[in-house]
């Protein structure tokens, strides 16, 4: 059994509970335990770093300090949490002045951080802490060559390429292919979904999403597998709005990669949470499954 501190992030208890439940279920199948960090707070995300960078770092530093007490790697499932936690740790180490300020702020709250926590993304854990042979061995439901577009988005591989190439990563492909599905190749797999600009610059974000969906479909995708709650929500929940705007007829299910793993591992359907995907994935998957 491998143990990890788990940082769910705000989306997991809010709009993406199926990422949380499927990730936990998959971890269990793979003999890993994700132990949720007690009393974690929001990472601050990119907006807080813009408004007040030091405060945003301190948000993350509190989480890092809590994780350090426990001693395991800190695993985030949201790409933005992953980036900001990592960035805090890097800045803490690179800028003595920031280190001093963070340490003093933490001390006011009775905490300390020494820079020993390794922040990781759950994709890294599932792709690299276990062999793909072991993943294959756990497959109970054959996905029958379901064509999946691996969608990384931005912040899981950039700016710091910790575990895969920043522009042409392969981690998701390895997992998808090991599950008995077929990963498709398409040029847009690490381009941006628009992120939070979907709220403040909707036209622009929808344009970016249109290019992504169009590119995935043109290359034969029957569904998308992604690693970030922002990407999932944008491409899934806004797909009908996008269809109206561009007069298109996309009906492309957007799954969390952990949902796909959970389906293949034969996990209880409640934990897979396919009912929560707005563009239904059930029919597409059922069409391929041969038990």
């Amino acid at each position, binding site marked *: 059994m491998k143990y990890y501190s788990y940082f769910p992030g705000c989306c997991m208890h809010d709009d993406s509970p199926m990422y949380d439940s499927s990730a936990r279920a998959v971890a269990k199948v793979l003999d890993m335990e994700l132990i949720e960090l007690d009393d974690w707070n929001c990472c601050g995300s*990119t907006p807080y770093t813009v408004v007040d960078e030091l405060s945003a770092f301190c*948000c993350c530093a509190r989480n890092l300090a809590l994780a350090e007490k426990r001693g395991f790697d800190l695993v985030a499932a949201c790409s933005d949490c992953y980036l900001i936690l990592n960035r805090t740790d890097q800045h803490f180490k690179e800028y003595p002045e920031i280190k001093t300020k963070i340490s003093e702020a933490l001390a*006011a709250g009775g905490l300390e951080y020494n820079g020993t926590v390794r922040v990781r993304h759950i994709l890294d854990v599932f792709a690299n802490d276990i062999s793909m042979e072991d993943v294959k061995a756990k497959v109970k439901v054959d996905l029958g060559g379901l064509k999946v577009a691996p969608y990384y988005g931005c912040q899981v591989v950039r*700016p710091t390429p910790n575990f895969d190439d920043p522009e042409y990563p392969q981690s998701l492909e390895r997992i998808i292919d090991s599950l008995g599905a077929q990963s498709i190749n398409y040029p847009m797999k690490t381009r941006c979904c628009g992120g939070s600009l979907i709220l403040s610059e909707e036209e622009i974000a929808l344009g970016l999403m249109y290019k992504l969906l169009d590119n995935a479909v043109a290359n034969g995708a029957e569904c998308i597998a992604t690693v970030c709650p922002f990407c999932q929500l944008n491409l899934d929940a806004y797909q009908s709005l996008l269809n109206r705007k561009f007069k298109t007829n996309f009906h492309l299910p957007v799954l969390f990669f952990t949902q796909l793993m959970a389906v293949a591992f034969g996990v209880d359907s409640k934990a897979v949470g396919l009912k929560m995907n*707005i563009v239904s994935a059930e029919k597409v998957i059922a069409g391929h499954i041969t038990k």
Partner: protein
Amino acid sequence: MEIKLHGSNDFIQEISSMPGGEKINLCIQCGTCSASCPNANKMDYTPREIIAMARAGMREEVLSSNSMWLCLSCYMCTVRCPRGIVPTYIMHALEHLAMRHNLSTPRTHTPVLYRLFSDTVYKVGLIPRFGCMSRFYLNVNPFGAVKAIPVGLGLLRHGRLQFKAKTLKPQAKRQLQTILDKAKAFGGAS
């Protein structure tokens, strides 16, 4: 574009004193950042131009432009920059300065969104999507709220809209706020 030959250096000092902004003077104007940016064509000035203008001391033109507000923080420019500059952090620094000096262009609502988001993190410790989304739309764009209704209903039908936000335990929230109060008292990272 008017180039000021005798622009002040204060602006470049301001940017390079912020974490991640130090390397701005290494720019060789190759344009790789602009070529990599998904939104460069919608910006008043492309990332390459923004750096050139900042170095020419064109403070007000830069800070009142829409360029940095269209930065997606996708970091494609950053991993490709041959000089190791982090244009994404420069964009963040410009957003920060534009907000701090009330120069942000009224053509974007992103500053309102960012401010709302940060205030929520401080007050609640977590981000409730429903609360944040509805407050944002009501604040700046009630028309956008009407368009967002089908999106909200879709989320609601699939059990993905939580009206009652999860909160931190009182003790944890107090601890976070004590830490953030101290951070605020420092008045910035640099």
